[in-house]
């Protein structure tokens, strides 16, 4: 199963459409979490989707998927890394009204070198990259520890307890 998730705030038609086009010609099941759709937002016809799912459903889809396809949001990145899932992501563009600023492009650039993370530069790349990643049985990166870096934890502990 492929799990498409675009966050909860805004729809992401370019990515949703690209995945729908892929799903039209493939048997692999896809489930999409598409965010708050607007009246003119794209509504996929080739896979099951909902606007929102509960945290438990999200967790179940995440654990059950072969590939996570997502916007370049930190929630998706940390989820993929934590649960050891390969991630294909595409950044939202503010110039296309998909986000408030271009920070997802910076995030995508920063994380594209990381094992298990793959970045589609545009919607044309999405379908071919899904094919490629499934065919290669793409591996996820090294599993992430559950905690922030020790330095950061120590800094916050000291702050909380007025030490140092």
């Amino acid at each position, binding site marked *: 199963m492929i799990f498409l998730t675009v966050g*909860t705030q805004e729809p992401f038609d370019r990515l949703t459409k690209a995945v729908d086009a892929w799903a039209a010609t493939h048997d692999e099941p896809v489930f999409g979490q598409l965010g708050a759709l607007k009246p003119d937002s794209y509504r996929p016809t080739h896979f099951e989707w909902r606007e929102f799912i509960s945290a438990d459903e999200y967790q179940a889809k995440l654990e059950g998927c072969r590939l996570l396809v997502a916007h370049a949001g*930190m929630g998706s990145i940390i989820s993929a890394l934590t649960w050891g899932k390969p991630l294909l992501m595409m950044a939202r563009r503010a110039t296309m009204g998909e986000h408030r600023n271009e920070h997802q492009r910076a995030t995508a650039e920063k994380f594209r070198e990381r094992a298990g993370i793959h970045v589609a530069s545009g919607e044309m790349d999405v379908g071919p990259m899904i094919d490629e990643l499934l065919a290669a049985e793409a591996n996820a990166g090294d599993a992430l520890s559950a905690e922030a870096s020790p330095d950061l934890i120590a800094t916050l502990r000291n702050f909380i307890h007025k030490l140092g």
Partner: protein
Amino acid sequence: MVKVLAISSTGGHWVQLLRLMPAWDDCEVHYACTSPDHEARVRALADARGTPVAGYHAITDANRWAKMKLVKQMLEVGSLIARVRPDVIITTGASAGYFAIRFGKLLGARVCWLDSIANAQELSLSGAKAGPHADLWLTQWPEIARENGPHYKGAVL
């Protein structure tokens, strides 16, 4: 026991906040989030660490384009802080974190803003606004750090 309020919006901010959990072991900790959805999981995680959740508080979700919701969220965060009276507030954003920083300072708490790791090129808007009011102002990217804040002390990954 030090009373801590850990607060953020749902999604990536929340996932980052939970990765800080060991920082408030041995504290009385309240969580606040813009979704009611995460209570069971955070309670399970916290119980496993031996630092049970003292309270989970769901607040209205909002963003810059939903002004009425933003006002509602602001009032909820204000009333939450007035009720809980935390000694320390830690937030990863976004607007809920900004309100927590401002109300927290007003009510005498020490407050920390950790800017989201999603902001690799510039600070978030809420971070730029909240940071100067924070007692501890952190970024997760060394290239964004400045002498007078934000400071870089590591990241959630």
